[in-house]
């Protein structure tokens, strides 16, 4: 059976992939064939056949592990000794974890607001302009790039070359990162943007804003286009224009979409760990809950603490999701 487990060469991998897909197709095909051919099958039996794979998968892959993790969060690092709420107490009292929670709070406030604001402003600015499509693609494009890729792109922007002591300015090594070169052009000292807290957290946050603004722009742009023409027309007749149109007509009209965008980005932000891992490895006081979960679980081998952080994440995400769903229901009813 090892043949089916491990693949070394490209050919083997592709064959394995085809086998996996075929296996799946055959099993599903059999289920469907059986439900179709057996006459007078009651509705519940068909429903079971259709639902069973998904429901079993979810029970195995999400429900049971989540319960297990909640349990583990009350145990020590090896998972053997019950320690009550110790892990949670540590998470809120110890300095290193307080920094993590503080950073998480900063991320979840700054990223959604900034990304949404930029996305909204840009959507309004390019709306119905001649280059609208192209302009939108430029800002939307980072959405398709992995966070690892985006992190590398921005690490290059922040790249720092040390300043040599006692060497005249014209003989200093050239800065190859754009930000530091700009500083040099303005006659300032180049900085190590990713090293010094607390500002380095904001330089990481920039990456997430850069990725998410396109999402905000796309959704909000659709909402702006859906504002009824007569409202805009009436406002124009009343002499509203420019900023006041934006403030009194555009923003109130798209409020439900704004809420959905902000909460969606906030949910994504809470779970972000790739950016922190790739940019700083969580060092220099830049860690956030989702990354600290990973570090505690898989690097420090502290399962109890890792689980507690995962549960904290869960607790933080839940109200956002619930609120988001409520808003969605509301706008659906209003339709």
């Amino acid at each position: 059976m090892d043949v089916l487990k491990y693949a070394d060469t490209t050919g083997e991998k592709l064959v394995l992939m085809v086998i996996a897909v075929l296996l799946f197709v055959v099993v599903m095909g059999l289920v469907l064939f059986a439900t179709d051919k057996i006459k007078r099958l009651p509705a519940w039996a068909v429903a079971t056949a259709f639902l069973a794979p998904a429901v079993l998968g979810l029970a195995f892959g999400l429900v049971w592990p989540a319960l297990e993790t909640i349990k583990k969060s009350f145990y020590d690092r090896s998972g053997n000794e019950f320690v009550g709420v110790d892990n949670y107490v540590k998470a809120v009292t110890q300095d290193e974890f307080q920094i993590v929670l503080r950073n998480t709070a900063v991320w979840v406030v700054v990223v959604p607001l900034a990304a949404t604001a930029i996305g909204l402003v840009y959507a309004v600015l390019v709306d119905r302009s001649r280059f609208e499509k192209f302009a939108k693609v430029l800002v939307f494009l980072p959405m398709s790039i992995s966070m690892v890729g985006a992190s590398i792109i921005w690490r290059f922007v922040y790249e720092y070359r040390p300043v040599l002591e006692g060497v005249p300015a014209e003989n200093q090594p050239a800065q190859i990162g754009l930000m530091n070169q700009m500083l040099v052009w303005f006659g300032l000292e180049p900085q190590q943007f990713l090293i010094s807290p607390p500002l380095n957290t904001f330089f990481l946050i920039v990456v997430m804003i850069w990725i998410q603004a396109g999402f905000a722009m796309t959704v909000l742009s659709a909402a702006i286009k859906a504002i009824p023409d007569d409202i805009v027309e009436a406002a124009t007749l009343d002499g509203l224009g420019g900023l006041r149109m934006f403030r009194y007509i555009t923003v109130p009209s798209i409020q439900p979409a704004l809420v959905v965008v902000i909460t969606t980005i906030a949910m994504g932000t809470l779970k972000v760990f790739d950016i922190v891992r790739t940019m700083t490895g969580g060092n220099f006081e830049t860690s956030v809950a989702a990354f600290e979960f990973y570090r505690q679980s898989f690097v420090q081998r502290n399962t109890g603490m890792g689980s507690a952080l995962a549960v904290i994440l869960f607790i933080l995400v839940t109200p956002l999701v619930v609120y988001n769903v409520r808003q969605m229901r509301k706008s659906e009813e209003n339709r």
Partner: protein
Amino acid sequence: MSAVSTEATIDRKAKLTRLEKRAIATKGKLSSPWASFAAIVIAALWTIPTLGLFITSFRPEADIVSSGWWTWFSNPNVTTENYDLVLNGSSTNLATYFVNSFVITIPSVLIPISLALLAAYAFAWIPFRGRNLLFVAVFALQVVPLQIALIPLLTTYVKWGLNGTFWTVWLSHSIFALPLAIFLLHNFMKEIPSSLVEAARVDGAGHVKIFFQVMMPLLVPAIASFAIFQFLWVWNDLLVALTFAGGTANVAPLTVRVAELAGTRGTEWHLLSAGAFVAIVVPLIVFLSLQRYFVRGLLAGSVKG
């Protein structure tokens, strides 16, 4: 008949002029130099970082370390050596990881969509007891952040001797995608007029037939948009791959390897820049060519209506 169509034309004309008016109003707004300036600044900030790394990936190593990428415009040396090195060089070998990404992604897109289609159909069109309750339960699972499921799943996979194989990655990605996929596809299926389904039923079609012959053709756009989503999400994923695939050349996808390079060779920009673009190019192609569906899915998923 003709009266109706004339009315429609008039209506359309009125609408057109309204649109035109609005376009004129917008033009007035955009002619403000500050507004145009702001738009250009944002567009530049969103484009230049990527452009800089892209140019760097084609510059010779000696140039990269001695001058910024913007000097390339006055000294345009171009080489593909970085790509050759990063794809085939024994220490980076991204070509292998590229295959892994591909092998991981295809089943991880196909399987959850098929499962979700079946489940969504059952929730939308087969009446059974406890249907609403179960649907809400599945929907609620969107709350669960992946992090909370990883450790127990890993323990199980290790127990089964499956860790570090494609199977665990396929299985995990498929399961994690289900709540959202079922929810979205269910919404689309609900919107199909019941008269269509009734008609098929009168013709003697069973659920399987209705599923394949009535639902599927109408759902193609919805399936496409979710497939793009899932594709980008799986291709760009780091967390799941890192946890279940490990870092071996046999299973680990591009994201894992590129992130590793960033850690160990963080200053070798000739490798990092080319590596980043090897990882970016496929999602970029998918995104640019299927953008319409992607946006449609985005709008269906976040703002209903």
